[in-house]
C-alpha cells in the first residue's frame, strides 16, 4: 500500500530555487508542500527590477511559474511559515511548521478596503525600508497570493477594529495566533536563499551614516517602477538626480574579515545597474571599482558591451574609505589605483555597495543533520539521505543556476521517495 503522506516532498523556501524544485516535482506527478516565510512567493528575485543579461523583468517568469502552481493541484504552498523542527529520516521525516499570523484569512478578495481604512504606517520591507506602507497592505503589486497582510502592531492597536470593520468579507481576524502544523514527508529540499550582507559591518564605507551610500539591493528597488521612487533613481538625501555614481564591488565579499567567498552575482548586478543609470541619465558618469570582473560564459558579452560605453569607467582598485562632504552630501571615495600605484580621491553623488550574499543557512537554524561549510552554506546537493540543498543554500548562484539547482534537487527528492 502506498502511504500518501510519506510519498510527498517538502520544499523549504519559495524563491527561484524552491519554486522550481516544487513545480518540477509536481509536474512529474508528485505531491509537494512548499513553505515560504514571506507573505508572498518569489523570494529575492521578486524584488529585482530586471535580470541580467537580458534586462527583462523577473515577473515575466514568475507569473508563468505561478500559473504552473495554479494549474497543479499537487502543490500546496504555505506562506508566512517557517520550519521549526525536523526529525526522522529519509522516507519518513517529521516536520513541524510554524505559521505566523497574517491576521487575514482566505476570505480576502484583495479589494484593498482595509488599506484605505488604515492610517498606521510601517517601514516597507519590500523596499528595504526606503518608504512607508500602510500597516494593512498587499506586500507589492504583483504579490502572489494576492492577499493582504496586517502588521502585528496594527492588529494589537485600537485602529485594528476600524480596519477590521472596513472589510465587507469578514476576512480580518485580529486575534489570529501563530499555529503549528505537523507534516510527514518523504524528502526535503532546503532552498532558503540568501540575505544581503549587513553593510553596517563595513565600517569604513559609511553605510548607515551617509544617506547617499546605498546597497545594490536598494538600487534594484530605486530602479523598479513599483519601488519607493516609482522607478526614478535619485539620491536618498535630497532626491537629486545623481550625475556620478560609484559602484563599489566586493563590499564584504572576497574579504577574510567579512565574506571570504565570492558572491558570484555582484559584478553582473552592478553592471546591470549601471545600465539603469545610463538609461535614465544619459550624461551620468559611472565608476565601477573592482578586483576582478567575473562575467562568466555568455555574460562576458554584457561586460564587453558596457566597456564600450564612454561614460562608464572600470577602475581596478579597492575602495578603502568613503567620506561625506557634509555640505553637498556628496561622497568622497578614497581608492587606490593599483594600475597606476596612486591614491585617488573620487567624488560621486551616489555610492552603491555591491554587498554580497549571506546564506540564510548561516543566519537561521538548519536541521542538525545538514552539515554546513566554513561560510554556512550546505555545500552539497545531498546533505543527508533524503535531505537536499538547492540554490544559495548550497553556493552563491545567479538566477539561471538557481533554477538548474532547483530542478536537480527535485529529482534527488523524487529518487528518495520512489518505491522500486
Amino acid at each position, binding site marked *: 500500500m502506498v502511504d500518501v503522506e510519506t510519498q510527498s516532498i517538502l520544499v523549504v523556501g519559495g524563491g527561484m530555487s524552491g519554486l522550481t524544485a516544487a513545480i518540477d516535482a509536481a*509536474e512529474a506527478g508528485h505531491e509537494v508542500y512548499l513553505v515560504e516565510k514571506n507573505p508572498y512567493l518569489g523570494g529575492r528575485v521578486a524584488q529585482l527590477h530586471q535580470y541580467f543579461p537580458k534586462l*527583462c523583468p523577473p*515577473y515575466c517568469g514568475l507569473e508563468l511559474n505561478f500559473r504552473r502552481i495554479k494549474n497543479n493541484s499537487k502543490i500546496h504552498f504555505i506562506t508566512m511559515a517557517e520550519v521549526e523542527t525536523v526529525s526522522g529520516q529519509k522516507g519518513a521525516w517529521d516536520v513541524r511548521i510554524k505559521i505566523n499570523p497574517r491576521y487575514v484569512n482566505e476570505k480576502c478578495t*484583495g479589494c484593498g478596503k482595509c488599506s484605505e481604512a488604515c492610517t498606521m504606517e510601517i517601514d516597507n520591507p519590500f523596499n528595504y525600508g526606503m518608504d512607508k506602507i500602510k500597516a494593512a497592505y498587499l506586500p507589492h503589486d504583483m504579490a502572489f497570493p494576492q492577499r493582504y497582510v496586517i502588521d502585528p502592531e496594527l492588529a494589537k492597536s485600537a485602529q485594528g477594529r476600524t480596519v477590521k470593520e472596513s472589510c465587507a468579507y469578514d476576512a480580518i481576524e485580529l486575534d489570529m495566533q501563530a499555529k503549528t502544523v505537523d507534516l510527514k514527508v518523504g524528502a526535503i529540499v532546503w532552498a532558503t536563499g540568501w540575505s544581503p550582507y549587513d553593510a553596517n559591518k563595513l565600517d569604513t564605507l559609511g553605510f548607515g551614516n551617509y544617506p547617499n551610500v546605498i546597497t545594490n539591493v536598494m538600487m534594484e528597488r530605486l530602479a523598479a517602477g513599483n519601488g519607493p521612487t516609482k522607478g526614478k533613481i535619485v539620491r536618498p538625501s535630497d532626491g537629486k538626480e545623481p550625475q556620478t555614481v560609484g559602484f563599489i564591488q566586493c563590499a564584504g565579499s572576497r574579504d577574510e574579515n567579512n565574506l571570504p567567498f565570492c558572491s558570484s552575482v555582484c559584478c553582473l548586478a552592478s553592471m546591470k545597474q549601471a545600465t539603469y543609470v545610463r538609461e535614465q541619465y544619459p550624461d551620468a558618469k559611472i565608476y565601477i571599482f573592482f578586483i576582478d570582473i567575473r562575467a*562568466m560564459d555568455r555574460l562576458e558579452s554584457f561586460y564587453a558591451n558596457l566597456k564600450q560605453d564612454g561614460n562608464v569607467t572600470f577602475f581596478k582598485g579597492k575602495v578603502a574609505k568613503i567620506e561625506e562632504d557634509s555640505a553637498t552630501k556628496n561622497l568622497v571615495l578614497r581608492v587606490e589605483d593599483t594600475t597606476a600605484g596612486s591614491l585617488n580621491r573620487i567624488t560621486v553623488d551616489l555610492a552603491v555597495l555591491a554587498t554580497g550574499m549571506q546564506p540564510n543557512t548561516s543566519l537561521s537554524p538548519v536541521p542538525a543533520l545538514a552539515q554546513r561549510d566554513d561560510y554556512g552554506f550546505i555545500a552539497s*546537493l545531498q546533505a543527508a539521505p533524503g535531505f537536499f540543498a538547492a540554490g544559495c543554500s548550497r553556493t552563491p548562484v545567479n538566477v539561471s543556476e538557481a533554477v538548474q539547482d532547483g530542478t536537480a534537487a527535485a529529482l534527488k527528492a523524487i529518487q528518495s521517495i520512489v518505491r522500486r
Partner: protein
Amino acid sequence: MDKKIAVYICTGCGIGEALDIEQLSTVATKECKAAVCKNHPNLCSAEGAQIIKDDIANEGVNTLIIGACSPRVMYDVFNFEGTILDRVNLREQVVWSHAPKDEDTQMMAEDYLRMSAARMKSTLPPEPYKPEQEMSTDILVVGGGTTGMTAALEVAKAGYRAVLVEKEDELGGFQKKVSKNVTFPFKDVQANEIQKLISSVTANEKIEVFTGSKIEKLSGGPCVFNAQIKQNGSSSERHIGAVVMAAGWQPYDPEKLEKRFGYGESANVITNVQFEERAKSGKITRPADGKAVKTAAFIQCAGQRDPQHLAYCSAICCFTALKQAIQIKQQDPKSNVFVFYQEMRTPGQGEDFFRKAQQEGVIFVRSQAPEVLTRGSKIAVEAFDELLGDKILLDDVDMVVLATGMVPAAAFGEDFKAKKLDEEPDKKKDEMVASVDSIFMSDILNLEYRQGPELPELKNGFPDSHFICFPYESRRTGIYAAGPVRRPMGIANAIEDATGAAMKAIQCVELTSKGMAVHPRAGDLSYPEFFMQRCTQCKRCTEECPFGAINEDEKGNPLPQPTRCRRCSVCMGACPERIISFSNYSVGMIGDIIKSINVPEEYDEKPRMLVLCCENDAYPALDMIGLRRMTYNAWVRVIPVRCLGSLNLVWVADSLSKGIDGILLLGCRHGENYQCHFVKGSELANIRLSKVKETLDRLVLESERVRFETVAITDYDKLPALLDEYAEKLVEIGPNPYKGY
C-alpha cells in the same frame, strides 16, 4: 456535449456599485441565452460557490460564465469539475480601471459578457492526445562523459530506464584524460573519480550502454521517439520517451591562434588540455625534452573573451590553471609558477581554491596582453603587470600553458539553413518570414525533423533556451541539453546540470504519457488538429512552428507530431486556410468573439479598439492597472491569446468588417533578448501585421488602424497612456468606413 449556460455575476469589490447589474443580467439571459443567471455580493465566498455547485447538481448547468474578478485570482474557488468555465474580468479590467456608473463602462462590461458567451459557444473540453504507438518512458542520453553518465544514473535511480550512447569506444568523455579535479569544497586538488562513475553506470541494470556508437536517426517525438543507433556497422532501434543531449565540448583549436603566444613555435608551449594528457602520464616535464619544469607560465584567456576567437568566457580555465599550477608546485615546491591572467574568475566557494594556489606559492600577474617570446629553445614571457604598474620579463620559461577555451560539440558542421537555401535556389528570401534559426549539422542527434537535424542555436553554437528562468527548455520538445554543450561549465556544475536535465526528461515523459503538454503550458490537454482536406501545402505551419513540431510529406502536406507540440498555436495563426484548431481555441472562436462585440454606429462617436494581448505578460499588466486604480479608455476590448503568434490575419479582417476602428497587439519583446515564451510568437505577429499594413495602405484604409506594441509585464505604469494615446489617434483618423455595414 449539450451546453447549459449559467452566468454568475459577483457584485462585490465595487462591481455592484459601478455597474447596472440588472441590465447586465438582461444581456446574459436575452443575448447570451443563459439558462440561469444569478448574482451574489461575495461570489468567491463558500456560500457563493455553493450556489454554483447546487446549480450544477440540481439544474444541470455545465457551462459557467463567472463575471467577477480576474481569472488570475480565486482560481481555486471557481474550479468545478466536469464543467467548462470562463471568467469575465469585471473587477480588475472593468470597474477598477474605468469610471463607475458610466455608459462606456457599462457597455464594456456587457461586451465582455457577450464575448465570453461567444467563447463558450464554440469551446469543447479537450480530449487528451493518445498516439497510436505504445508510449515509452525510457530516456536516451547522448554522450557518455561526466554529464551524460550522471544523467543516465540519475534517471535510473528514479526508476526509469536509460539508453546511453557514446561515440568513443569507452565511456568517460573528457574527464578520462584528466588527472585531478577541482570541485566542492574547493580546498585542494581532488582525485578524479571518473572510474567510479563509469563502474556505477556499467553495473546499473537499468542503463543500456552503447559505446563506439552514434545516433544515426532520431524520429518521432516525446514518448514515441525512435532512435536508430549505429554500432560497429550494425544498427539497433530503441523506442524512447525523452532525450538528454550531453555531447560535451571540444577544445578550441590552438592552431587558430596563428602562433600567437608561441603555440606551434616551441614544443614547450602547450594548451591546458595537452597539460592534462601529460599530467595523466605521471610526472609533469618539459614537453620538448622531458626535463624538469623549473619555471612555468600559464597564459589565461588565450583566444577567449576575444571576438576574433571565442567571444565568451569558458568559465573553467581559471580553475584549471590554478589546479595545474598547484600540481606543478606540489611536484616541486621550488619551481616558479606564474599565472598571467586578465580577470581571475573563481566564483563562490571557489575563491578558496584561488587562496590555496596563493598559499602554495603560485605567483599571479594581472596583465591584459602578455606576450610569449620564443628564441630557439628558449621562451620568455613579457607582460605589463597591472599591480606593479611596470613591465616584467620572465626569462627561461620551461613551459607555457595556454588557456584555450571550450567549444560546444553542437557548434560544428554546416549550417542547415544555408544548405537548404543552396538546395532550393528558387526559394525567395522574403518567404523566410521570421529571423532564420541557425542549426549546425553537428551529427549528434540527426533528428528526422523537417526544420533541421539538431537543436537550434542561440549564440556561439550553444542551443537556444530561455536561459535565465527556464534554462533547460530547448527549442525541440523533450530534448534537453546538459553540461558544457549547454553553456561552458566544469564538473561541479555539470553534475547538477545533468541531474536537472534528467529531471526535465522524466517530467516530459510523465506529462506526455498523460496526453499533456510540457512547459510552458504544462498540463494543457488540448492539441492542434488539422482539417487536411483544405490544406494548400503552403508550408507556413511547418516553417513557422518555433519547436519544429510539424514534419512534411513529399507533397508538402503537414505531418503534425502532437507530442512535440507546445500548444502555442503559432501554426494556427500562420495558416491562411484556417485549418488548424484546438478544441478550446480556434481561429473561428476568436473571430466569433470579435463579432460578438457590440460596435456603436458611426454617429455615436464611440470608437472601438480591439486589444489582442499575450495572456502571460500584457494581460497581467492590464490587471495591475486595475489593482492600482489607474484608468484607461473604455473603448478598449481585450482578448487574451495564448501567444500573439496565434494571430491569424483573418481576425484583422473580422474586426475591420465589424466596424472596429483599431486593432492593437500587445506582445513581448522579440529579437536577440527575446522574452516571448514561445520564442518567435511576438516576432511573427509583428511580421504578419506589417503585411496587413501594406494591404490596408493599398485599400486606402489607414494603416494606423493596426498597431503592434511591445509590453512587458511590469509596464503597467505606461500602459494607460499608451491605450489612451491610441484611442485619441483613432478619433483623429475618424471612424472605420466599414462601420454599419
